[in-house]
């Protein structure tokens, strides 16, 4: 696998954030001016429990270099238990994708609360770093021709 070491390359990461905690945490990062890499594109969903395996795979297929799903910490879910169902779905999906050779770090999961602005910035930094180390996504990307080479 050819590694892109170009420091200029900024990966494109899709982040599915739950409205009540992680999206609010992302806002708080802004209010507090914590800086993080301009790599993520946030899709607001009501709950991490709304995020299906299909959505994550679709993001990869569309060419996302990484996918981040973030929800409320266990116990904090606005909808009582959505994040706990999500946790099981993600655990199995992540293991399955790694099993078939999708690089660990392409998809990431985190819990970020509405008061964790700095934590959100750190999560984005870490996810971006992990994806950068992997280079542009090629596996499960539908239109390889449109990817930078």
């Amino acid at each position, binding site marked *: *696998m050819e590694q892109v070491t170009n420091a200029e390359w900024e990966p494109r990461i899709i982040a599915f954030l739950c409205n009540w905690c992680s999206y609010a945490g992302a806002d708080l990062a802004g209010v507090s001016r914590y800086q993080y890499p301009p790599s993520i594109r946030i899709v607001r969903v009501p709950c991490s429990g709304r995020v299906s*395996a*299909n959505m994550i*795979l*679709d993001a990869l*297929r569309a060419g996302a270099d990484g996918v981040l799903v973030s929800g409320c910490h*266990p*116990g904090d879910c606005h909808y009582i*238990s959505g994040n*706990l*169902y999500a*946790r*099981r*779905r*993600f*655990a*199995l*999906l*992540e*293991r*399955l*994708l*790694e*099993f*078939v*050779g*999708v*690089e*660990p770090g392409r998809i*990431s*999961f*985190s*819990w970020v609360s509405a008061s964790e602005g700095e*934590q959100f910035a*750190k*999560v984005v*930094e*870490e*996810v971006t770093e992990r994806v950068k180390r992997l280079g542009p996504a090629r*596996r*499960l*990307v*539908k239109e390889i021709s449109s990817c930078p080479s």
Partner: protein
Amino acid sequence: MSIVNQKIGGEIQTIASSLLESGEVAAFLGYTKGSLPGMMRPYVARDSGEAGNLSWSSFCVINLANYLPALLRSVEPPRRPNEPPPEGQLPKVGVVATGCWSRNMVVQVQENQIDRSRVVIVGVSSRGMVDRRKVERLVGNREITAIEEEDNVLIVRGKGFEETINRWDAVRDNCKTCLHPDPVIYDELAGGLSGDRQIPDRFHEVEEIEALSVDERWKWFQEEISSCLRCYACRNVCPLCYCPTCFVDDSRPQWVGKSTDEVDTALFHILRAYHCAGRCTDCGSCESACPMGIRMRLFTKKLQKDVIELYGFEPGLEADAPLPLSTYKVDDPEDFIITAGKKGDQK
């Protein structure tokens, strides 16, 4: 002649015949001999005369649970899609079930696909079904014209040869790693029960893949599915695939493309396996049905392993336990959650 199978086949005939004769069931689903050597095909007997065609051997590789929902519907009086079922007991059907098939039936009951009270299950302890491809390999891929089964050996004949092979050597991989050959639920038994088995390395096939590097795994995965024709035989024989519109056929939204594009094929296999997570009983029908010999069972087997590891769950063993993706525990493992420097960071 396999004495064990013959006895089981005979008992199935007797039970089916009496069930049909008494009117207890409207139809009985079992196996009958196929037209090719070493082939069995699912068979529905509708009267006691047809029950005489039922048979049993080590070649019953397709899971009968798959046909059960449709068979149940077929014996109901016709009605419109949203019309409520008529009052009173609807006709029953009989079916043969080994360990894995019966576990599928448990899942089907849990997912409202079959009404347990309408099914008379004739349980059979599985001795492991034979993989025809293994038989072919064991005789050097020569053309086979007849296979005769004895209890522990198979006598394979072809043009100018006759070889005796050990039956167990030709048994399917999923059967070799099966812990629960006995039916979980049944109303009658054909043959005896054999008890749970101890298999220390039941996931060795998965572990071998896991031991590879990520790039090697990707290579393996690509090679494994490269011959896929997208014929969907694996899906069609799966007793868990009963969506009216499969995601591969859906156009709104179009989750995967319909061609044999390698990404779409990969996504098909990933999602097909994922949909079986926590539900698959490793019956092996998918592999047995695949015309290209793709070992897609490994994907579902991997999920089976993870579900046991993470949630201590095996589908079909307990009718009351909710399926793992329909429930949660507050303290489910979550070491895959990234914590970005916070305590508990695992990665």
